């Protein structure tokens, strides 16, 4: 028998056993990730991309804005231009490094904002239920009625280009799915006995949400959001490609892809480089998100 025996007339004995070390949820997730080498490798790629973008002022070989009529559309490895030049004679490598800044920003900021807004709305809708839930979730359904690219194009197309408008459009695109995830998770947790027990001990709504709901809702929201970063980078670059996101001459992968497209017959492989950067970044985020999903699927 594994249970601790305990007689009714026998109050607990004083014991001197040392406290046990146990792993909490997030610790066990970290423990699992440590042995998931594929995820680790892609995690390191993300780290490298982020570092390269952050350090671009120091590691970029040239000024990304400096044009040159002489060195237009040079191939890979031409003189000092390791990865060639674009249609205005600017160094591709430097622009790729600098472009990582806007692309990563456009990938992370809208998702972060949408987690805050959508997550809050979802938890509120899920916890309160009833009419409030109807109001919030039916409004979200309307935005669900658009494919995400179409919604982003519609909003930033109407409002005009620019990075801020692009981010706003992407945030609006990601709020509904995150709201739905948070609402589903909250609704599931809300009916569980430990939440009832918390209410029975006299706790208010805010306290229950903070102490009992958030901890259980965070994991699914986090996993989903990590997958959205890749989508966000893809759509943001797509917007820039259509002339809706980042505006020239700011270096950005999507924008570079768009302007280099004209030179496809002159210097095809240079044209493909910015897209490759988008692809590697988005793939890495997807792989890491997948690894997280598996590591966080801990039965507790």
């Amino acid at each position, binding site marked *: 028998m594994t*249970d601790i025996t305990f007689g009714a007339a026998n109050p607990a004995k004083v*014991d001197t*056993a040392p*406290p046990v070390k146990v792993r909490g949820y997030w610790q066990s997730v970290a423990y699992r990730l440590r042995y998931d080498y594929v995820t680790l490798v892609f995690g390191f790629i993300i780290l490298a991309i982020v570092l390269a973008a952050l350090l671009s002022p120091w590691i970029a070989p040239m000024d990304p804005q400096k044009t040159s009529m002489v060195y237009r559309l040079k191939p890979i490895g031409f003189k000092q231009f390791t990865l060639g030049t674009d249609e205005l004679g600017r160094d591709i490598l430097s622009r790729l490094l600098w472009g990582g800044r806007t692309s990563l920003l456009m990938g992370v900021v809208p998702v972060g904002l949408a987690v805050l807004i959508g997550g809050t709305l979802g938890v509120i809708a899920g916890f309160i239920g009833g009419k409030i839930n109807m109001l919030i979730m039916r409004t979200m359904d309307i935005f669900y009625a658009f494919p995400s690219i179409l919604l982003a194009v519609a909003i930033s197309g109407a409002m005009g280009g620019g990075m801020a408008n692009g981010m706003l459009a992407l945030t609006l695109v990601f709020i509904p799915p995150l709201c739905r995830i948070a609402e589903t998770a909250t609704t599931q947790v809300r009916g569980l006995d430990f939440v*009832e027990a918390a209410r*029975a*001990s006299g706790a208010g709504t805010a306290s229950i949400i903070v102490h009992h709901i958030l901890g*259980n809702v965070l994991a699914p929201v986090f996993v989903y959001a990590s997958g959205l970063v890749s989508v966000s980078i893809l759509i943001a670059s797509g917007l820039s490609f259509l002339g809706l996101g980042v505006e020239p001459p700011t270096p950005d992968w999507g924008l570079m892809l768009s302007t280099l497209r004209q030179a496809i017959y002159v210097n095809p492989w240079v044209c493909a480089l910015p897209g490759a950067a988008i692809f590697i970044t988005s793939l890495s985020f997807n792989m890491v998100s997948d690894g997280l999903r598996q590591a966080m699927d801990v039965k507790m």
Partner: protein
Amino acid sequence: MTTITRDPPKLDVVPEGDPRDRGGPAQPLLIAQDLKKWFPVRGGLLNRAIGHVRAVDGVTFQVLKGETLGIVGESGCGKSTLARLLMQLIPHDSGVLTFDGDPIGEMRGISMKEFRKAVQMVFQDSYSSLNPRLPVEDSIAYGPKVHGMAAAAAKSLARELLEKVGLRSNLFGQRYPHELSGGQKQRVNIARALALSPRLLILDEAVSALDKSVEAQVLNLLRYLKRHFNLTYVFISHDLNVVQYISDRVLVMYLGQVVEIGSVDGIYTSPKHPYTRALLTSRLSMDPDERVEDPPITGDPPNPINPPSGCRFRTRCPFAEAVCASAMPTLPKWLDADSHVAACHMHDAAGGHSRSGNPPGVLDPLHALAPAGRGPAPVVPLRPAVVA
């Protein structure tokens, strides 16, 4: 196999000088007066309410200070809804709840916050009874913190309570629920309920999911804690043996209504209501000679959305007559701790039933439901509940 022998049932008297006591020993701790809870059933094109599940339909009873009131009934009879109503986790549609003389949720009554401190609930052990993201001592300490206790004090209280329920705080305090066995989790659940020093504990199927051997340990723990903390229990279960073991008085529910209340000995040795008899006969006997061949109660309970007219048990009752369909029997007024009453026309001298005033139970206890012509039922000595 552990055999539990049972102390003679007696109503504990509240010790003098419990500072929380307000109404005195004679004042029932909790009075439920005509409680009702109907859940709407939605359907149709526009999802409108098309009917109501009468989960709790006019329930009246009293919980005396220091006693254990057992509540039994088939699953779906409204036991759990009743528990949540008593706990005020869901509001009742109508009726009055009075705690130690003070009406709950009314102007001059006890505030909800005070009530929440005084009444706590132990849930059925399941994966959801404890927050999977919190170490168990934090789950226990949460309630006191809500009521303003400092974090350090709450934690040391939690560790003290863990010891009280038989878990070494050094070994278990920092663990997460998934690292505990069912019995251990249930001890934690009990400790959590005790953390606010309640006077009344509502135990909703608190031992039903446990292994039999563990169940016995937890039941013993509950008996110990009751004395130690001067508690009153409402013990809800579908397990007749467990209820018999732990209760002083027993309340039998059928389809959202109380059909019988009485002392545990009264209910188990001379049940009055045909439903109670059927329930008791349906227990599997440990003695092969006593086994009944045919189940005494057949069929599922009727639909609580459209309960039968008159007496709700009449569709399954072998004594049903015309009067049972036309008039709903009422539960006679309950008088004191030893009263034994049943809502049945046969037990009402003016009930209009052919056996009114001469109910079958008096003639052949326990086996009154046996088909006619089978001869007198054997006399069954009451045996202690055996936990296998």
